[in-house]
């Protein structure tokens, strides 16, 4: 297991990284692989959808499958809640969100996606970098006030770590001893700016010491290590020990979005050298070596991913625009006279002629 322990990170009260075999059954490893295969296939397909004009844009998560699937797999969906950014498709898939409803955000159907956040335990897709980190802290503090065992899992990246809101969120969480896990996917790049020009001190997890919070830095391309680290952090928060930081070191293998051309700021050599091990290939080898999966299994996993994607694509293609009346409908629980007047005017004028 590759849990990294860099010099400056104070581990505090966190359990030390063990070298023992993690407690995942072969069946769970097979499930993790199948999830990653589905996510990988849907992700690369979504890029193709954009090229084919099915969706106007997409933010790929290629290379971050282990970080997303491994962390989300550790959630207890009976009580926990995840707060994504706009690049957590792997998290959504892992916790079982309706993927047509999730991907509808990229179809430009509805900004936050069409899924039910309460039911799915996934907050709406968040376009503002670091926008939801404070929401996670507030939600977590609510669990403390209610005496419920839920933990908030807040996703953000190395770029977002520059936002003042992240500082405010970590400080609030530590002061309030809120059950929140700050899960950083350090994927090396914030659009065109590399981590070394983004994160002073070289790691986000090192900052946890300043808030008196434990941190684990983990190889984000090792799904088992990510799962294990996240499970420990969730346990830590759940048992009343307060917030914790997990920093998964991974790599954004693709562009920032379908409109981005990484050739303008990094070379192919950079990508070859920095991308690290392919998370899927890594787990595949491990399973083969341990004899818990054979080629038939992998072929079946890929076939499932393929048919899943087909169904999701069909669902996305079938999505029409929402009725324009919804623009007005969801502004308030109780609408205002002015807004009603505007809605009526809109209705009349769209029916005109």
């Amino acid at each position, binding site marked *: 297991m590759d849990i990294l322990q860099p010099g400056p990170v104070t581990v505090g009260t966190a359990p030390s990284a063990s070298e023992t075999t993690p407690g995942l059954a072969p069946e769970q490893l097979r499930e993790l692989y199948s999830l990653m295969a589905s996510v990988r296939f849907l992700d690369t397909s979504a890029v193709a959808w954009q090229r084919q004009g099915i969706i*106007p*844009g997409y933010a790929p998560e290629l290379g971050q499958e282990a970080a997303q699937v491994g962390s989300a797999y550790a959630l207890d969906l009976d009580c926990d809640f995840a707060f994504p950014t*706009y690049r957590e498709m792997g998290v959504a898939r892992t916790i079982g969100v309706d993927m047509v409803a999730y991907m509808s*955000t990229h*179809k*430009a*159907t*509805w*900004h*936050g996606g069409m899924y039910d956040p309460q039911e799915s335990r996934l907050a709406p897709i968040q*376009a*503002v*970098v670091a926008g939801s980190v404070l929401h996670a802290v507030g939600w977590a503090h609510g669990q403390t006030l209610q005496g419920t065992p839920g933990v908030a899992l807040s996703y953000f990246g190395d*770029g*977002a770590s*520059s*936002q*003042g*809101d992240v500082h405010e969120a970590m400080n609030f969480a530590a002061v309030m001893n809120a059950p929140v896990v700050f899960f950083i996917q350090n994927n090396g790049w*914030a*659009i*065109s*700016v590399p981590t070394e*020009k*983004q994160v002073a001190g070289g790691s986000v997890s090192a900052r946890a010491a300043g808030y008196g919070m434990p941190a684990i830095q983990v190889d984000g391309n090792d799904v088992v290590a990510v799962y294990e680290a996240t499970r420990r952090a969730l346990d830590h928060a759940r048992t009343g020990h307060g917030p914790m930081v997990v920093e998964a070191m991974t790599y954004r293998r693709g562009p920032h979005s379908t409109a981005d051309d990484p050739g*303008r*700021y990094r070379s192919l050599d950079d990508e070859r050298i920095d991308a690290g091990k392919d998370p899927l290939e890594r787990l595949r080898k491990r399973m083969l070596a341990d004899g818990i999966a054979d080629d038939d299994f992998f072929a079946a996993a890929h076939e499932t991913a393929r048919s899943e994607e087909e169904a999701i694509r069909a669902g996305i293609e079938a999505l029409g*625009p*929402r009725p*324009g009346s*919804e*623009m*007005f409908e969801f*502004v308030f629980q109780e609408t*205002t006279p*002015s*807004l009603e007047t*505007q*809605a009526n005017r*809109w209705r009349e*004028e*769209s029916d*005109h*002629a």
Partner: protein
Amino acid sequence: MLESTTATLDAAVEYAEVEHLSMQQALNRALDDVLTADPKTLVFGEDCGRLGGVFRITDGLQAKHGDARVFDTPLAESGILGMSVGLAMAGFHPIPEVQFDGFAYPAINQIVCQIARMNYRSRGKLPMPVTLRVPSFGGIRAPEHHGESLEALFAHVPGLKVVSPSDAHDAYHLLKYAASRPDPVIFMEPKSRYWQKGPVDMRDGGTLSGARIVRPGRHLTLVAWGAMVARCLQVAELAAEDGIDVEVLDLRWLKPIDAEALARSVGKTRRAVVVHEAPLTSGLGAEVAQLITQQCFDTLKAPVERVTGFDVPYPSGDLEDEYIPNIDRILLGIQRVLEYRRG
């Protein structure tokens, strides 16, 4: 490092008299000129350096002017604007970029409480010659927070000036003009017009301080700014088919508003419709309507009409065309004014 130069803005670069440029290119040339002429100028923001900006407005500027003067910042708008305050206090002329309109919100504290007030607080000792470039307005099917119209928000803040160009020519000259002013200017770039080409007279910008009549007419004045100017010009052509001669006034400066230009135009046409993408309530249309009514009340043939976005969060791409004033909605606004009879 930064060297001093005696070159003036206008003498800095020799161009052909009239060039055919997109607004993107015109803004890039304006920044290049300002960086060349004024060694105190700094251009920075998220992805502004090596990438050249997500809309390529700063493309090539880092290579030409060096990474001390054109640089990438961490991803934090409040930090970008806060740093601008300190740089201006140290004598620089910052031209920061907020990558998208919606990401000005995280920086509102620094914009409203510091940049807008530092001159006043210091009794004129600490001017803030900051030109904040904000790719603005909708129309490109972008995700949430990438299609906002913040002019009323900014215009409401004492200490700020606000301007928005509608074509490549104005983009080039207004940006150079804004960057040469001693007060903070919010420069709202209509991103849906970035790719539109037009003639730019590189030598003669004309009068840059007020509004501009882009189409003269006799029967009614359409008042607009940014991307709505081009749409109003289309409407004016269609109205002409129906025998209505529409004047289009590009307001350009949203603070201060050129009240005299409004009075001159509407005093002549006696009818006015204001068009903007921003939501209706407390939008600048209200301000414009009040200025017209105040000045032309006796001769107005009808109340000033507003055709605007709705009081809803800017919708997703599929509904964008339902939200932004379209040709029919503007024509219907015109029709309401034409039909009005004092009763």
